[in-house]
């Protein structure tokens, strides 16, 4: 069964070959995509768009738009409409503390307001095209690994289904559908991040920096994606991450310059559009200082609603550092695997950000099929998926009991929020563990033996 694969690997012993093969393989995948995948993908798009179009027209749309799990004060459509109305009246859209989108976003919607539904559907579909990244690396380094690891390596054939699976995971994910039907601008932010990932993987440093700056401009947190993007681009250019090498410093400086430059352009452009710096406090101040404590699926609202005012600043810092802090250890541990690092960072952002919605979760969940080779090392995936499923069902129930029936209270709802986030953290750490374990097996062999010859087990402590 593996003979074909083995001969396939034997030709790939030098970096040049590796690169060639990557290209060949990617091209192969494109051909495959265009012929065999076209029909299912088209069908999928039709189904996904039909579902959304039907929901837009149904009475459920109003209900979904009101759900706190789906929209946050940052990305609610109602607030965008309010901001536009203010803009049309010649008032600053940030007057009144309702609107918290960036100026570029409001001008974007100023032009497409009549086609909002279409914009959201198109953005959902675009994300899928953008997420068609491919990871062939492992299949091609095969000969460096012990023989019994062959079953750990994905065959090209398996990988060819990944784009379809990613598309399915994103487009048919109920979270994405809800977010799209609620016209939460979270979908557009996701599209920007997907553009960033695509341009990074294509190796275009300039585009990657521009889209990263755009994503940062939209919601600050994607700042942490800077590290993986840099690592990936360095890896693509065969520049080792070494403090003493000038080439490393040269490229890093270039990338930082491009990133900060485009960020500065966007911020200045926003200033000239509205002729005021109001948006800085209204958007970034709003994200960082968390003044709106409407319940959502995140960890902030309950905690800060209960807290004494004079501890507030300290704990805001603690909570916000949480998002950025993990970048350093993860970048060190995963410096060889920047794409996985991107996934980890996106997941961490969506868990720890101040106003998370289900749309954010949908983005990192779309990555999961790309890691389907880790499935055999996952330990709690079943438990976690059951908890996530149960929590998703319990959110509306407890909300009803709290707000409408008045018999439950905020503690019930927060308990489920907490459980939901714990499950997400478990999911991410489980994938992290599985990834590291697979790497370990790739270098040490799949069936580990102790010194005395008995079967060994890996223990994470």
């Amino acid at each position, binding site marked *: 069964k593996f003979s074909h694969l083995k001969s396939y690997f034997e030709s790939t012993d030098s970096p040049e070959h590796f690169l060639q093969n990557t290209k060949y393989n990617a091209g192969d995948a494109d051909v495959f995509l265009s012929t065999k995948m076209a029909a299912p993908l088209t069908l999928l798009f039709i189904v996904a768009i039909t579902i959304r179009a039907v929901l837009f027209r149904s009475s459920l749309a109003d209900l979904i738009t009101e759900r706190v799990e789906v929209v946050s004060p940052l990305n609610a459509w109602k607030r965008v409409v309010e901001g536009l109305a203010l803009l049309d009246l010649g008032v600053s859209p940030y007057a009144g503390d309702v609107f918290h989108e960036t100026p570029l976003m409001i001008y974007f919607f100023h032009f497409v307001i009549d086609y909002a539904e279409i914009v959201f559907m198109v953005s959902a579909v675009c994300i899928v095209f953008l997420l068609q990244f491919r990871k062939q690396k492992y299949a091609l380094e095969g000969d460096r690994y012990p023989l019994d690891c062959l079953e750990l390596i994905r065959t090209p054939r398996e990988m060819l289904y990944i784009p379809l699976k990613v598309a399915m995971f994103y487009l048919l994910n109920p979270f994405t559908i809800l977010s799209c039907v609620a016209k939460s601008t979270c979908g557009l932010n996701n599209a920007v991040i997907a553009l960033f990932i695509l341009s990074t993987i294509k190796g275009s440093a300039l585009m990657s920096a521009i889209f990263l700056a755009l994503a940062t401009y939209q919601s600050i947190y994607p700042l942490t994606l800077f590290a993986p993007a840099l690592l990936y681009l360095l890896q693509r250019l065969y520049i080792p991450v070494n403090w003493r090498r000038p080439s490393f410093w040269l490229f890093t400086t270039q990338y930082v310059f491009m990133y900060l430059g485009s960020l500065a352009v966007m911020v200045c452009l926003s200033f000239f559009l509205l002729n005021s710096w109001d948006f800085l406090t209204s958007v970034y101040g709003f994200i960082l200082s968390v003044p709106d404590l409407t319940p959502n699926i995140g960890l902030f609202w309950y905690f800060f609603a209960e807290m004494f005012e004079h501890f507030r600043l300290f704990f805001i810092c603690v909570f916000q550092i949480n998002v950025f802090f993990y970048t350093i250890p993860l970048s060190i541990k995963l410096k060889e695997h920047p794409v996985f690092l991107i996934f980890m960072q996106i997941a961490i952002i969506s868990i720890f950000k101040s106003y998370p919605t289900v749309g954010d979760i949908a983005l990192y969940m779309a990555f999961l099929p790309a890691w389907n080779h880790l499935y055999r090392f996952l*330990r709690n995936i079943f438990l976690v998926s059951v908890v996530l*499923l*149960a929590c998703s069902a*319990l959110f509306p*129930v407890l909300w009803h*009991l709290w707000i409408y*029936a*008045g018999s439950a209270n905020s503690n019930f709802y927060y308990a489920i929020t907490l459980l939901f986030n714990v499950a997400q953290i478990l999911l991410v750490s489980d994938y992290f563990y599985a990834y590291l374990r697979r790497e370990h097996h790739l270098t040490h062999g799949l069936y580990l033996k102790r010194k005395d010859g008995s079967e060994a087990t890996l*223990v994470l402590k």
Partner: protein
Amino acid sequence: MGLLSDPNRRRALTNLLTRLNAPICVVCYLAGVMWFMGLAFEPFTLRTYMSENAMGSTMVEEHFPAGERALATGREFAAHKKKVGGMPVNWLVKTMESRGLEVFTQSFTRKLPFPDENKERYLVRGTNVYGILRAPRASRTEALVLTAPCSQGNANNQAVGLLLGLAQYFRSQVYWAKDIIFLVNEHDLIGMQAWLEGYHHTNTTGGDWSPLHGRGGSIQASLSLELSSDVITSLDLVLEGLNGQLPNLDLANLFHAFCQKIGVLCTIQGKLQRNDWESTSGYSHSAQTMMLMVLKQASGRPWGDHGLFLRYHIEAATIRGINSFRQYKTDTTTIGRLLEGMYRKLNNLLERLHQSYFFYLMPSLTRFVSIGYYMPAFGLLAVILLLRVSFHLSDRRGLGVGLTRYPGVLSILTPVVISHMTGVALYCLPVMSQEMAVQHFPVSETEAVVLTAIAIYTAGLALPHNTHRYTLPLVLKLVALLYLAVLLGCTALINFSLGFILALSLVPIAAFITPHTHKPLSAAIMVLLSPGCTLLYCVLIFQELQETPVSLQDGWMLFLSVISQGILDHSLYGSLVYPLLALLIYPCWLLLWNILFWK
């Protein structure tokens, strides 16, 4: 985290769960049932206490003197009711105005989806009359409600009389800080629904009513009075509202406290408090009381006129006077004093009742079981489902096919969709097809609806068998188990009793059904434990507990009327039990039925 990361301990745990899965499940089931039965045992329950400060420590005096006059007004009302042949609107308006209230009327029309044979009504027209006593002491932002129904025949005349008497007496007092609304509603809950929707500017069920012209503040609490005799032996407190919602426990505490103070016998579920909990009969008495509450709550229908208030965040209860053959009687003056006391205490409220429990069961009026104590009973049943799921995942030979193969996510869509379509048919068709059924069969509309429902229910058993070829039973079973677990969990949170009863009957079949079991026997067990049959048992047990046992024939007729009432409650008041059973529980049961007939 040790358990989550240490492979050795994980393996040990998995082995234990796999090897002893069936015994553990059986133990869990028995433990769940025993826990539930133990809830009625007095040492395991908590004594009720008043949590609300504003009602607990303040003293009020009751001076209501005019019981006899209230009865006279009641007789006058009865005479006018007889003369008009319905609600004597003009007389009521005049009487209320003469007592110094601001009086308003609201007319409503409601066409039932099919004739209600229990109450003999189809096209309902009626009028609500209500008078508002404006609060002299505060800004009129809050209100209390006292209601009495204008029933057909001679029922509840005394309640209206007492309501008018209290209105007159309350008018002369100066301490009211909340508006008091005195409402006489026609056609019991239909009138109540129209009034509440008019008051809150909502229209959830598509009724047709005229808008209200007068309003008080936001309603804090409400009591409904049902009184059909001049003297009573005891007062019964009814708490169960729409969808099994209960008012804050403090309202029950308040009622009990005043019954103790004034010396009126008080009951819940029509059962007196007993003090001999050590004896078997004492325990079985409180167990019966609690079971009655569970069955009533599970039915999801409002058991008194107060039931619809709870939907609007208004704490409400019904107080029902009972006249039995006991020697000791209470007169109307005493009941009036009791109500006066309760209203004065409610008048002292500074905020909505929220201090005490909303989730509770009551084995007697002085004892309650809170959510923390009763949820483990349900949890023990629900955990069986998860245990079975983990068992099937770790022991893949169990159903013959491994999960390592492509699980065929799409292929299980077929049975899932077919089951749900059957559920939708069960939900829609009975009411929609009644005309056709009446044309072709010699039955009334109500019978047509009920019999169509039963026919679709039964037909569902035959329907989805030919889908099994495409499906792996293991995957289908996993889906069914998880689906049921989530469904029952959500149901139990909203309405514990319903969730628990459904879990009692559905968990055993969900846990142990496989394609390999003895077919006829398993099929018989499954049908006996299906949701429909569970409903029948509940009806029979309810009659038994109420000490009005029925023969099987009468039980069947009652079962049919319960189904029609369930459908009516859904379309009239928005009760969720019928759609829950038809659209979710029944399809889930059909999935299990599908697994059994997998070849």
